[in-house]
């Protein structure tokens, strides 16, 4: 029994922890599989490997070597710490032995990874003592000084860079890099799975530009990708480079046992779906971990939460010297010290935000404790991947928040462990992204008449190039089309935004980042709480003219949620299909979106603290949507089953007196249809439902009461009933869809329409790509419609609450009670159960 087994036992068999561990995943010990060094490997490299204690290669390393040396593109898709770097280092360095002029480009998504890799390459090269002129390695990024830049362009065999620098600093200046391009043999793209959404779609185009130029300089480099293990990674890579790449997924490296626990805080009130505060539970678990001689890393969403956890832990244990936090915004020196102390083991517990980015080396840890699902499977896996060193056992514990997105994981723990998630969707043909990328491509080299771009044929390119001509940046001379503007297109947009139009996020005059104009109103409206890299900000002002969101640092106990009105205009219906009682659609939509106000919601309890109104102009965009309509028969059936109950609600003392007063006031007449007769009963109806008021006096205020005939009353109640059902379902679908799209929650918008123009007046739920021009998300949902609805039913059915809770159909304060019942009914009818 080693210490990890003791720890596991102490949790699993504990009467408090044990029953709340709702999942225990185990990745067994992985034995190493070896192959000998390849025959053609140079003596100096062999010597280096031997000196590093390597006498054989893992099978995937050897396979990669052979493939790369035979000129094939490859993808190495294997686990954390499986020696992926050596897969490309060896073949590239071997080729350098044979060709001293060789050039290779290595693209890393973060600075830390780039630094890391330079160190590794340098170690091999200085050890392997290259004959002839020594190899030069250069990091070419925003920090590289001007004199160094020239030197790197002319002399570096290995240029380590990032997508932004490639886009802004290298491709538009390719003639200055002609020596580099003429000898470019390898392009290494590390951690390719991080290129998703807008960033990934831009990156695909940047690579297309790179390929266009390598063709110009007469070379055809081999592309080498490394990736986390993903399903369909080959398809994803093909979308990126429009070439095939050989997939190497056998992992020959050894690995220790990896345990994964999901801890769901116990109920306080089962009916209301209320659970114990998850952060408090995380702190409790961390205290327990301190009893063992193991090193722990805790991840939390925001800097505020990091600080809270740290404060509690330090106060409750009195061991502040071994408990530290790691977040953005440190000075380099103090950051290095933190990293050093983590690596050396002085720090026992580190609490971090995601600022602890890919590639920051803190050594392997024994336990990773994750305070709430980080929002995407990719981040979850990345955080969990911090655990484990060599063949030692490691443990990850995910503490769930009550949010639906967290609770949904319980249904699919395989998302975390055995089953690989799908590669993310990218859409390089998004017209916004494409247009801006084409400008850059045109700047770099004129377009020939018969030239396509990526998967676009010359004909498909015509409307784009025509538009550039209309805008006066393209000059057509018949055979070729030239860039003719004095602008520098690559400087006009960032790969992190759509490119079309964005707002700057400014804090004390400093720009922190960008947000797409299409989501600026939604995410950074005045008074919004905005979280950037784990830090919480208040949006002081949104300057519409200057396109600036002015932020100030704030400590709050609430977050904000925009309230908006959305209208749709159907531009082009691409697919539709009747699936039992519902009809599903996919098409191009014009969305008019108006943010009218926002809610302040308390963290943890989700209590609504207040509503505020906003006066912002409407925004229009064209994007893609998936929607489905409940058929008429289904709606009617639901209403019958709603069995309109005459169960007299307890509307408080004096209700009957009040009703006759109101009826008197309304002239004993239905205020909707004007009915005045004796056959139908006249009811008094609460405009805003009684149950949504805390104070019955306010609910029963005459302004909230109205006289209706029974027919109209039923219709109105029915509408309310359907509406609350749709809202609950929309909440549910909006939260589980990201799992099937590998996207963030904010990448899609969900809207309910009771009588929608999109489906002849029927009630619909619309889910659309929140990015103008779309990312392909809605189309994917359209194809997964049935699966999605089955999943939704399972969630509702299995949730322990009675009337609805944040873990299923949404917080009750928002939807009103009873939403769970109708959602369940809708889903059961649709799914024929």
């Amino acid at each position, binding site marked *: 029994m080693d210490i990890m087994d003791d720890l596991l036992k102490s949790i699993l068999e504990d009467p408090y922890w044990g029953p709340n561990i709702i999942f225990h995943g185990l990745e067994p010990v992985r034995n190493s599989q070896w192959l000998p060094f390849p025959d053609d490997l140079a003596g100096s490299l062999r010597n280096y490997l031997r000196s590093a204690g390597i006498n054989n290669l893992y099978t995937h390393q050897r396979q990669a070597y052979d493939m790369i040396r035979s000129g094939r593109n490859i993808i190495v898709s294997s686990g954390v710490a499986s020696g992926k770097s050596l897969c490309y280092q060896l073949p590239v360095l071997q080729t350098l032995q044979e060709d001293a002029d060789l050039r290779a480009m290595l693209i890393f998504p973060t600075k830390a990874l780039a630094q890391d890799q330079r160190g590794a390459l340098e170690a091999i090269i200085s050890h392997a003592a290259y004959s002839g002129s020594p190899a030069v390695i250069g990091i070419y990024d925003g920090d590289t000084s001007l004199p160094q830049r020239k030197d790197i362009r002319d002399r570096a065999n290995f240029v380590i860079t990032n997508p932004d620098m490639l886009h802004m600093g290298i491709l538009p*200046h*390719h*003639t200055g890099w002609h020596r580099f391009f003429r000898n470019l043999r390898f392009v290494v793209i590390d951690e390719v799975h991080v290129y998703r959404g807008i960033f990934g779609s831009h990156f695909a185009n940047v690579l297309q530009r790179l390929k266009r130029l390598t063709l110009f300089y007469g070379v055809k480099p081999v592309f080498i990708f490394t990736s986390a293990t993903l399903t369909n990674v080959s398809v994803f890579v093909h979308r990126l480079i429009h070439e095939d790449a050989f997939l190497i997924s056998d992992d020959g490296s050894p690995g220790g046992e990896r345990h994964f626990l999901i801890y769901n805080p116990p109920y306080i009130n089962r009916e209301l779906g209320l659970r114990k505060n998850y952060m408090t539970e995380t702190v409790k678990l961390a205290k327990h971990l301190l009893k063992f001689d193991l090193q722990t890393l805790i991840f939390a969403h925001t800097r505020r939460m990091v600080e809270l956890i740290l404060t509690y832990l330090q106060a409750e244990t009195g061991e502040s010297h071994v408990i530290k936090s790691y977040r953005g915004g440190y000075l380099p020196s103090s950051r290095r010290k933190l990293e050093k102390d983590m690596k050396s083991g002085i720090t026992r517990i580190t609490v971090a935000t995601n600022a602890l980015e890919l590639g920051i080396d803190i050594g392997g840890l024994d336990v990773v404790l994750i305070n709430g699902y980080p929002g995407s499977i990719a981040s979850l896996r990345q955080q969990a991947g911090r655990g484990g060193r060599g063949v030692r056992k490691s443990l990850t514990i995910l503490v769930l928040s009550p949010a639906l997105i967290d609770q949904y994981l319980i249904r699919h723990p395989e998302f975390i462990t055995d089953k690989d998630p799908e590669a993310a969707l990218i859409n390089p043909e998004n017209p916004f992204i494409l247009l801006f990328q084409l400008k850059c491509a045109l700047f770099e080299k004129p377009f020939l008449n018969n030239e396509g771009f990526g998967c676009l044929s010359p004909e498909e390119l015509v409307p784009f190039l025509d538009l550039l001509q209309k805008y006066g940046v393209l000059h057509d001379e018949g055979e070729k089309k030239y860039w003719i*503007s004095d602008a520098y297109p690559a400087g006009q947009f960032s790969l992190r935004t759509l490119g079309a139009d964005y707002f700057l996020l400014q804090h004390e005059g400093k720009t922190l980042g960008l947000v797409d104009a299409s989501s600026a109103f939604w995410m950074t409206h005045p008074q919004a709480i905005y979280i950037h890299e784990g830090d919480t900000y208040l949006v002081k002002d949104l300057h519409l003219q200057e396109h600036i969101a002015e932020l100030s640092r704030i400590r709050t106990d609430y977050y904000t949620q925009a309230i908006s009105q959305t209208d749709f205009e159907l531009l082009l219906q691409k697919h539709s299909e009747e699936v039992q009682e519902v009809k599903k659609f996919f098409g191009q939509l014009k969305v008019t979106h108006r943010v009218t106000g926002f809610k302040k919601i308390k963290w943890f309890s989700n209590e609504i603290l207040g509503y505020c109104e906003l006066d912002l102009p409407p925004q229009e965009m064209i994007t893609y949507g998936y929607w489905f309509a409940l058929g008429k028969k289904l709606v009617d059936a639901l209403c019958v089953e709603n069995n309109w109950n005459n169960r007299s609600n307890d509307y408080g003392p004096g209700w009957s007196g009040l009703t006759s007063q109101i009826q008197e006031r309304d002239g004993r007449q239905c205020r909707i249809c004007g009915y005045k007769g004796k056959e139908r009963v006249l009811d008094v109806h609460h405009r805003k439902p009684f149950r949504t008021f805390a104070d019955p006096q306010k609910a029963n205020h005459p302004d909230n009461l109205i006289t209706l005939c029974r027919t109209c009353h039923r219709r109105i109640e029915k509408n309310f009933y359907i509406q609350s059902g749709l809202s609950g379902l929309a909440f549910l679908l909006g939260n589980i869809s990201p799992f099937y799209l590998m996207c963030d929650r904010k990448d899609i918008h969900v809207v309910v329409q009771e009588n929608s123009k999109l489906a002849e007046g029927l009630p619909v739920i619309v889910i659309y790509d929140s990015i103008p021009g779309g990312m392909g998300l809605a189309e994917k949902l359209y194809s997964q419609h049935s699966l999605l609805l089955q999943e939704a039913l399972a969630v509702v059915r299995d949730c322990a609450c009675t009337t609805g809770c944040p873990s299923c159909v949404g917080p009750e304060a928002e939807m009103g009670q009873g939403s769970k019942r109708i959602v369940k009914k809708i889903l059961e009818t649709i799914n024929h159960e």
Partner: protein
Amino acid sequence: MNKAELKDLKALLQGHLPEENTVRNHSRAGGNNLQDVLSGNYLAAGEVFKISSSYPYDMTIGKRKLRCYRIPEIVHKYSGSGKLELGDIVFLDTETTGLGTGSGTFVFLVGLGYFTEKDFTVDQYLLDRLSGEQHFLESIISEISSYCGIVTFNGKSFDMPLLRNRFIFNGLTAELPDLWHLDLLHLTRRLWQNSLSGYDLQNIEQQVLGFWRNPGEDIPGEKIPEVYRNYLQDRDASFLKNIVLHNRTDILSLVILLDLIAELITGDIRDCFEWKFRDESGIGKLFEQMRDEVNAIRCFERSIRIFDDDRVSLKRLSFLLKKRGEVSRAEKLWEKAAACDEIYAMVELAKLEEHQRKNYVKALEWTLRAHNLLQQRAMVNSGNFQSLIKRSNRLQQKLNRDKIEDD
């Protein structure tokens, strides 16, 4: 995305596109041809237009005469060239479609000025269609190739790299000849540091050379790309005339600016100091180039006295002193530089300790410090790195040997 979806791309992107220039209509009726506006002729392929203009030697611009005798001497001294004749030198200025040096910036007008037996001539090549770029560049190369020295203003970082880019872009096998290059911007900055309100040619003309351009015959530099862009689209050459004049004036300014600089530098040196020299470091470098070490040392020393953080002067001075055998003075400077993390200084100190003083412990200390520093830099030349590793290995061996001998 199919055709129907892209049907009206502009509508699709509406409201999301930033403002852009709109273009004038093609081929305006009644527009002027190049030949109506400018006296020149099309070269063989018809895509390049050449204009030649001559100016008598005794023409005055501002307060100066065009003909000057000191030019070859100054070019010789500051470009590092061999002995030159006046006729070996060409003055170059380009007009371009943008200010960047990226691959989307075209050179469309190149002016070449040179002295003949009887006058000063400016040949200008205008790119009439972008498709003619290769011919355009070939015409320029064949003319430039007959000179040995070239004079520009900011040509080292703009005109020449841009032309070189265009050559590479067009896959021309003939490379731009490697001429002795004198960039007057560099000299001007050194001579009039901090005393001009701007260092573009226009400011220099007004504040140093004392002349103003005729607005009717010139065009502000920032308007040039747009005018040329319009010409390509509507083929009306009317507005090109001012660009051609602008370019020609640039070249004439170059000549008289160089003449003034020559007068200042080749005259009595003491006079020059009394004049408004500010940049001692820059002048020091000039003296160093002229191999006048005594004056160079004096300038660098003065510069360090004025600017405590002038690392460049410090480095140059230390090597000059080393070269002249004044090692102890040099050592003081290296120690100061090493305190500012200068690797060269650590290497020099290591050499000094190893070879002169045989103090291997200290030598190793300096070597390791340099090694550690180098490891933190963004770019590593593994040559430097390896030489440091070699040095430290050698020192270790020497130290071990000493130890054994001590035992």
